[in-house]
């Protein structure tokens, strides 16, 4: 790998810009896509590798090329700077997520409770909307307070984020679903919400609940069957 390619890869990472490293395996010659112009079959393979976040191999003119996607990190937006969030944030970072915590209650969302984490004190709908959740983003609401959680969920449901989870019991969630139906969300949209949040591992402590949430986020990301649930019924 040349110093130029290494520097370009690191600059792309710094800028959170997706790039694919293309390596000709016979001699190690490399190109960075889309920075460099490459033949169409390589460009197509690079675009597909970035889209699917999966490395691939392409043969072009009898030469084997390795297509190595370098996507920016997956993002996790946590609504609610609560105790469980304090456990969830460092775990999610260890798994590779770029984490942002949203909570307008400044007493909760402090640098002391969340060292080194991006904290947003705007109202949750404005905050989540400004973060523009995309297909590489998970949104988890943990405040347990409808006036904070619901606006965040409303924005998340209108995005194509890959995971939405909401803390609260089945009963709490049934009421939440009823409110969101009133706000105009349909059944299919509401089925996207994982609630009660997290895999059922009988978690009790804050770190255990954080673990169950993170495990479910990973399962959703990787398409594991256990992340799929039946649609919840709205409360009468």
């Amino acid at each position, binding site marked *: 790998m040349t110093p130029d390619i290494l520097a370009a890869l*690191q600059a792309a990472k710094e800028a959170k810009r997706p790039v694919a490293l293309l*390596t000709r395996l016979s001699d190690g010659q490399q190109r960075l896509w889309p920075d460099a112009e490459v033949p169409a079959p390589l460009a197509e393979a690079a675009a597909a590798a970035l889209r699917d976040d*999966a490395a691939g191999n392409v043969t072009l003119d009898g030469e084997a090329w390795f297509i190595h996607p370098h996507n920016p990190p997956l993002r996790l937006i946590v609504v609610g700077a609560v105790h469980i969030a304090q456990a969830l944030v460092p775990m999610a970072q260890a798994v590779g997520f770029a984490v942002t915590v949203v909570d307008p209650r400044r007493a909760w969302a402090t640098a002391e409770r969340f060292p080194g984490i991006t904290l947003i004190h705007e109202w949750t709908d404005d905050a989540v909307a400004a973060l523009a959740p995309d297909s590489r983003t998970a949104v988890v609401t943990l405040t347990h307070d409808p006036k904070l959680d619901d606006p965040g969920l409303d924005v998340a449901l209108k995005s194509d984020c890959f995971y939405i989870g909401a803390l609260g019991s089945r009963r709490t969630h049934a009421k939440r679903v009823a409110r969101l139906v009133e706000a105009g969300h349909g059944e299919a949209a509401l089925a996207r919400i994982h609630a009660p949040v997290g895999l059922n591992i009988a978690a009790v402590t804050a770190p255990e609940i954080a673990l169950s949430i993170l495990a479910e986020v990973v399962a959703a990301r990787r398409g594991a069957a256990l992340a799929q649930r039946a649609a919840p019924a709205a409360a009468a």
Partner: protein
Amino acid sequence: MSDSEDVLATAANWRAAGETVALATVVETWGSSPRPAGSRLAVSASGKLAGSVSGGCIEGAVADAAKQTMASGTPQLLDFGISDERAWEVGLACGGKLKVFVEKLA
């Protein structure tokens, strides 16, 4: 940040500190293989290792190849598989097969 990029950053730091460094990348896997394509192992001339290309089975053999590539500057494409005697020697017991590309960090 994906783990393979962490390895790249570590390798870049070693290189910046004046070390000779080689980078090994899993480019293809078949069957049960613990690390997917794109997984990286960085090796320094002084023997430092970062990352992984397997569950630990072939790292030793890859590090040996990395030292050759550090000396020659020529990249190598290594094949490890159940039909490969070397794979048994180095203990790829999972029954998987994989190809590892080894290059020098210039």
